[in-house]
């Protein structure tokens, strides 16, 4: 059994929470006591259905009172075929940063469209964010088909509008499903009201789609998280570099380079849970031992000598500004790429991306909450990186305000 992480995006009234509620409810993932609570709540705050399925994901009191989703909520369910992790992200404009957050770990985006309204500005924004974050699969779920009399014509129109718009985005794998979350059409079971639709219902689609790991080259990457040094009598010389194989694989005897120092050495030993192994694949937590006694600390990269990432003090990147406080030109910040952290400064705001047309606008140098900009960043220490398009892990970073400690931006390297 494997794992699929997906995120859902849509307008406030597209019925996103209802769709998730329906998936959980119809796949028997909700316990009776939660249903009891829901029935009770639905009577006081709920809308028109017997059980307001949206209440399943609206977790915090403010959300229940206002009837909106204010933050990323994670939900879990599994079928015989797969385990699913859903990041439910709010649609309204002021929370674009949460969508970035939910989308960053997902391999599939479900973008909800209200069949009555067709493609809206928000649909475009969600798609553009999916494109920037290199989403391997995009599913456009055309919801509320019951309110357009299950019209094939309406569905075809939206499908064609979306494909026209998406052409410029370079999205890889786009699928469409007509559905009604409220009525349960094409969510878990196939709808008998849309016989013209020959595809799978949503759940079956999710169970069977072949997952492409996002933007993963086979080039091997590893960053040191922590140095294990027991310093006991019997393990006096033990010095292991603990971290995760970010991409590709590592094997015993492989020639590697430590970055940013550039020192070349060889992998002497690979340990997984204290067992020595010959080969460690992507995502395995390992402890690497090197032949030579090299000075290595947290955040350093150990990479194959024949496939080095770039190591520079300047990167061009697309960033989403996430802080309530706007960017102050010249402000000192920290850049964190996995376990590597360095002081940095935004040297130039090159352009601003129009989130509704995906065009680059001339920048006035300002960046505020939810802006997506192309920037030039200068770092104090050299950073070893790949382009985000080649590697989701070594090509992504966050920016931290040194004063407030807040995460103020997230970026993908060009």
């Amino acid at each position: 059994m494997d794992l699929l992480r997906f995120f859902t995006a849509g307008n406030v009234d597209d019925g996103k929470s209802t769709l998730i509620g329906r998936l959980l409810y119809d796949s028997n993932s909700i316990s009776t006591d939660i249903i009891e609570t829901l029935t009770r709540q639905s009577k006081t705050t709920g809308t028109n259905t017997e059980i307001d399925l949206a209440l399943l994901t609206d977790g915090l009191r403010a959300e229940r009172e206002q009837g909106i989703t204010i933050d990323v909520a994670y939900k879990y369910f599994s079928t015989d075929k797969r385990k699913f992790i859903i990041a439910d992200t709010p649609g309204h404009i002021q929370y674009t940063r949460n969508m970035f957050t939910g989308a960053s770990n997902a391999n599939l985006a479900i973008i909800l469209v209200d069949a009555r309204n067709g493609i809206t500005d928000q649909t475009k924004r969600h798609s553009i964010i999916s494109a920037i974050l290199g989403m391997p699969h995009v599913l456009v779920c055309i919801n509320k088909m019951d309110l357009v009399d299950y019209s094939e014509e309406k569905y075809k129109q939206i499908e064609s509008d979306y494909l026209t718009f998406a052409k410029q985005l370079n999205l890889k794998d786009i699928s469409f499903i007509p559905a009604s979350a409220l009525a349960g059409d094409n969510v878990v079971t196939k709808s008998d009201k849309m016989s013209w639709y020959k595809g799978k219902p949503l759940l079956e689609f999710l169970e069977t789609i072949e997952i492409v790991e996002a933007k993963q080259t086979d080039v091997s990457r590893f960053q040191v998280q922590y140095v294990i040094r027991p310093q006991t009598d019997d393990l006096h010389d033990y010095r292991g570099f603990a971290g995760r194989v970010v991409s590709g694989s590592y094997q015993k005897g492989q020639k590697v380079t430590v970055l940013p120092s550039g020192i070349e050495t060889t992998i002497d030993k690979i340990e997984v849970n204290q067992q020595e192994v010959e080969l460690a694949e992507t995502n395995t937590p390992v402890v690497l031992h090197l032949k030579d006694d090299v000075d290595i600390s947290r955040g350093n990269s150990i990479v194959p000598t024949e496939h080095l990432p770039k190591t520079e003090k300047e990167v061009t990147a697309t960033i989403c500004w996430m802080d309530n406080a706007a960017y102050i030109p010249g402000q000192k910040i920290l850049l964190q790429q996995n376990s590597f952290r360095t002081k940095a400064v935004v040297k130039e705001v090159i352009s601003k991306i129009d989130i509704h047309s995906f065009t680059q606008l001339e920048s006035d140098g300002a960046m505020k909450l939810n802006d997506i900009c192309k920037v030039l960043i200068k770092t104090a220490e050299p950073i070893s990186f790949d382009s985000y398009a080649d590697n989701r892990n070594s090509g992504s970073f966050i920016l931290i305000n040194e004063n407030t400690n807040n995460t103020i931006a997230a970026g993908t390297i060009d």
Partner: protein
Amino acid sequence: MDYIQDKEEIMKNKDYLDELEAEAIYILREVAGQFDRPALLFSGGKDSICLVHLALKAFRPGKFPFPLVHVDTGHNFEEAITYRDNLAKQLDEKLIVRYVTDTIKAKKLQDGKGKFPSRNGLQTYTLLDVIEEFEFDACIGGARRDEEKARAKERIFSVRDEFGQWDPKMQRPELWNIYNGKVNKGENVRVFPISNWTELDVWNYIKREKIELPSIYFTHERECILTENGQLMNTNEFVTIEEKDVVVKKKVRYRTVGDMTCTAAVESEAYTVDDIIKELKEAKISERGATRMDDRVSEAAMEDRKKGGYF
């Protein structure tokens, strides 16, 4: 070409538990790398037992870069306490225990009242005190997002202010595998490495890794009060038994190991981990709903406790 085929083969055999485990180990190592004085909050329950198991995989042959810390309410099950002490001894890791009973005396607090006196609110005081005493800047906990609605919205690195408070509207965005644990002195970060695990995942992992648990997780005979809403509450020295109470002897087990006064037992025939997994797959009642009296108080009970500094 050969390489790609190999890779497909690997993907086919990939177990989602490997992915959850790798994520948790990664998070534990980030804690070790980012903080000066972290701690692992250990309760003797299955979730924190899994955390210790994951820490072994993350840091051995080295020592844990943090002590185990237990806030002992004085209402704990003896089996959990014995397990805790044995585990710390066996692993030769540092264990710090602080007692809610001591906090009640020192701070002249009002102890839990009523038929099932709860110290749930009170343990927050002890927790905040022990964080202050050792100046912990990170506290690793075994909370999972599937447990409760407020937890579903909490970050893996969850920043608390100097009063231990959680502000759900001011959470740091958390992207990719990048965790920002930077805090000012006096603040701390609660870290939840198994956020993405469900109750069933935890049991499947316990099975796969052959992790030993306190005996109360498995079915045994126990004297209980059958409450009006159908919950089975263990009879013990802290619970007042009245004449009208229906006291029954049942075959029960515990799904969570909380305080004896506010954790209900469930009737069960599950004597092994396999039995439990089978039972869970058929179970209709969620974990906290089945066993926690404290969450039933209001819809926002957990949210309020977390904002106040609770785990």
